[in-house]
């Protein structure tokens, strides 16, 4: 039910500010990237030459093909591995279920980039395990390229499929399965004809999130792709390397990337819009009584996935506590890496903490009213706002970064080189988090509460501030913490936008990759893990309560 408040300027003000902000810092930069792809090197004349150039180049054609191949592979593998996991957790007597689900949320909020980096530290050219194996004379293949990238995506993105699928399986009413069996279907048959089709939308909604994430991810292929061209990385390299005034080639790849993700989002929306199998569960189906064999197998399967996904993080912490002399690792416990890190400068840590905090507040300040307007006011304007506010999902960080730079490096508003441009990019990118979190919690608050407050003489704006904010606080804080964590581990926009003193922890790691500072990078990564795990643990209860809505 929606509230229509006459002569209530509040939703209008919110919608106006939101459109203004997103127009300036999302739509216009994207438009500039789009424009850049159609203009010649000087940036004045219209041309299709840029597209022709990219299409003619085998290298860039490959980057498109590689990106799509990896995306499809990662999405399929993740889904295939996670769907049975979800079913086991939801329906089988798996051991340690609560711990399992708590740990399974962690990869979602720890940077995939760190995971990829850990893999390099372990299995890369100079990796710990690689060295050990070489020393033992055991030959070892390369983890670089497609297999490594797909592996990291699977390990870091599987919660996107797991959480909605478990929720979908739990939302199934027991009577549906009972009816199927009552009508003569075997348990096996009723699973494939009733249970599975009903949870397909949940599985797919997760799978499409994985697809979008992998397509736009910058950090993982940057670490693991080596010479293999990947769209999200090539956009960045082209932009950094382009000397012309108009970043035409980067623009072309950027447009292709945004188009791919947009198609995925549109397919997701259209497919799921037609399929909502809300069975309104009164009673979830009971656990399937399985023999000890099945039970152990399911437990083993689930724990293996979760533990493997956490290996990179433990490895990073472990490595950070070992002694490095030059590029060579010595198996001695040492805090030298941390000492070195602090000697260099504490600015990156301070920057990460400061920028994340600013971004979390900014995203809440903007996202909560947007979530409110989108949920409570039904109009054509808010319907458009809803679409625009979820758009950042489909925009790769590198593209947004490039767009912001070409839009605001000269003219009436110059933002490049400062901290503000970073915060703006973060707020735009993570806006869907807070919008979704606040609209999810609003769905649980009866609209008549607001009407009662207004009826008692409190204006709509004051009602929002005094009544709705306190009622929504749980969801707002949850959304803010998630934003905070996501921003702290953000790389793709940061790497394009940061300058000089505004280095963040992820940038430090990114730069250490090129040199030989593995110990330093591991220490930095550990520091980041430390600062992201704490808030995640604190907010874990909230996260579980809203696990669906925060995805």
């Amino acid at each position, binding site marked *: 039910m929606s*509230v*229509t*408040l*006459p*002569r*209530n300027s509040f939703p209008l003000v919110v919608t106006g500010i939101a459109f203004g902000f997103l127009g300036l810092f999302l739509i216009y930069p994207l438009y500039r990237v789009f424009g850049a792809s159609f203009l010649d090197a000087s940036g004045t004349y219209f041309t299709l030459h840029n597209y022709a150039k990219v299409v003619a180049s085998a290298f860039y054609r490959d980057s498109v093909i590689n990106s799509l191949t990896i995306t499809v592979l990662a999405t399929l593998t993740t889904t295939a591995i996670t769907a049975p996991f979800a079913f086991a957790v939801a329906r089988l007597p798996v051991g340690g279920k609560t711990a399992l689900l708590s740990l399974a949320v962690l990869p979602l909020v720890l940077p995939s980039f760190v995971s990829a980096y850990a893999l390099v530290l372990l299995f890369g050219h100079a990796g710990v395990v690689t060295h050990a194996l070489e020393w033992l004379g055991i030959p070892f293949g390369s983890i670089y390229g497609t297999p490594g990238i797909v592996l990291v995506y699977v390990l870091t993105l599987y919660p996107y499929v797991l959480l909605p699928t478990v929720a979908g399986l739990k939302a199934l009413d027991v009577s549906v399965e009972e009816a199927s069996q009552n009508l003569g279907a075997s348990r096996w048959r009723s699973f494939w004809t009733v249970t599975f089709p009903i949870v397909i939308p949940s599985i797919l909604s997760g799978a499409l999130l994985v697809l979008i994430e992998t397509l736009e991810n910058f950090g993982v292929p940057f670490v693991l792709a080596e010479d293999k061209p990947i769209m999200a990385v090539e956009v960045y390299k082209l932009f950094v390397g382009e000397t012309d005034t108009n970043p035409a080639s980067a623009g072309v790849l950027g447009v292709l990337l945004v188009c791919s993700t947009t198609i995925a989002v549109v397919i997701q929306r259209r497919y799921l819009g037609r399929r909502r199998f809300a069975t309104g569960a009164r009673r979830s189906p009971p656990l399937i009584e399985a023999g000890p064999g099945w039970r152990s197998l399911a437990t083993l399967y689930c724990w293996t996935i979760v533990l493997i996904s956490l290996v990179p993080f433990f490895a990073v912490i472990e490595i950070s506590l070992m002694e490095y002399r030059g590029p060579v690792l010595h198996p001695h416990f040492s805090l030298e890496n941390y000492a070195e890190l602090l000697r260099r400068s504490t600015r990156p840590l301070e920057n990460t903490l400061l920028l994340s905090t600013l971004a979390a507040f900014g995203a809440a300040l903007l996202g909560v009213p947007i979530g409110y307007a989108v949920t409570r006011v039904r109009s054509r304007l808010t319907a458009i706002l809803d679409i625009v506010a979820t758009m950042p999902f489909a925009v790769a960080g590198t593209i947004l970064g490039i767009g912001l730079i070409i839009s605001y490096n000269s003219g009436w508003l110059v933002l490049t080189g400062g901290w503000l441009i970073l915060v703006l990019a973060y707020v735009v990118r993570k806006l869907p988090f807070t919008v979704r979190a606040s609209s999810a919690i609003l769905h649980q608050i*009866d609209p*008549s*509460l607001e*009407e*009662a*407050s*207004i*009826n*008692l*003489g*409190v*204006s*709509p704006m*004051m*009602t929002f501030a005094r*009544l709705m904010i*306190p*009622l929504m606080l749980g969801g707002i804080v949850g959304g803010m913490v998630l934003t905070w964590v996501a921003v702290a581990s953000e790389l793709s926009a940061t790497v394009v936008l940061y300058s000089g003193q505004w280095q963040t922890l992820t940038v430090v790691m990114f730069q250490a990759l090129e040199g030989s500072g593995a110990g330093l990078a591991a220490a930095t990564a550990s520091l980041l893990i430390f600062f992201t795990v704490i808030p995640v643990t604190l907010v874990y209860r909230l996260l579980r309560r809203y696990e669906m809505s925060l995805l």
Partner: protein
Amino acid sequence: MTTVTIERVSRSFGSVHAVREVSLEIRDGEFFTLLGPSGCGKTTLLRMIAGFCELDAGSISFGARRIDTLPPHRRNTGMVFQNYAIFPNLTVGGNVAYGLHARKVPAARIAERVATALKLVHLDGYDARWPHQLSGGQLQRVAIARSLVIEPEVLLLDEPLSNLDAQLRVEMRGEIRQLQQSLGITAIYVTHDQEEALAISDRIAVMRAGTLEQVDKPDAIYRDSTTPFVAEFLGVTNLLSGTITRREGAHAVIKAGATEFHVEGTVTGLGEAVAFCLRPEALRVIAPGDAIPDGWASLEVLISRVEFLGALTRVETQLADGTMLRVALLDQPLETLSVGHALTLAYDPRRVTGFKAA
């Protein structure tokens, strides 16, 4: 205390006319009920008065002051919601004081007025309780106290009893009525429950598809319904149709199937079709050998079904042509009513309501 004037008010949602050209004059201190089936526009009309729904056309005034141009928080109405809408983050006292804080009443006065309001709804001493500690009925009382404490010009009640169980509903409606009368406040009440409307109201407006069907006192609405819709909506009735065949003194005689019914007045011209209604409780059983009361008409029926409800017995009977006629009998010995047997029924022609054929 205020009169409420609603003038030619309309509102449509897309192609649906929720409220169409409705005009009403609600008197000072009156308990006025908007009654109708779901989707008839009664809640929309109430929300228009509260300001939660905009008018497409028309105006609403409290006294001489036009209020439909004011934002909802400046209208000074007290609304009681169907689901109570008690703020879960405030105590009972906090909920009741909410509107007083908005009006910047001094703290000392607030405490005093909250205590008085809670006493009024028999919740003295519940100040510090939290909403989740209260029962549905108690929450309802808090909601009423909260809307009365601000001394609103008009009290608006949107199906306030529909979430309560049957017994509590009867109890609460009595209390609401009593409270309203002792305060002399103008109240507008929305319900789809005809019994509730009849029990509580000074006047009732029956609504259908966005328009007013009939506005009158409860007994007039029930006994002299002006349309078949109103007659049927207000409880069980017999809705029949026939043609006027002749006149007998002050009566018109309607032939419906094979049976003749007497109606007081002319209703409409000879030979014309009419619909009419006869309430089941207006029919009496005439025992064999007993005389038919003076001025009454009678008819013969066959009993087809008997439903014993305690004080009341509902009987379904058939007229000669098979048309069903419902009868409600008070304290009638059950052995006189066996299925398949004939029965003589009598009624006062003044209790038959004729409608001009639609």
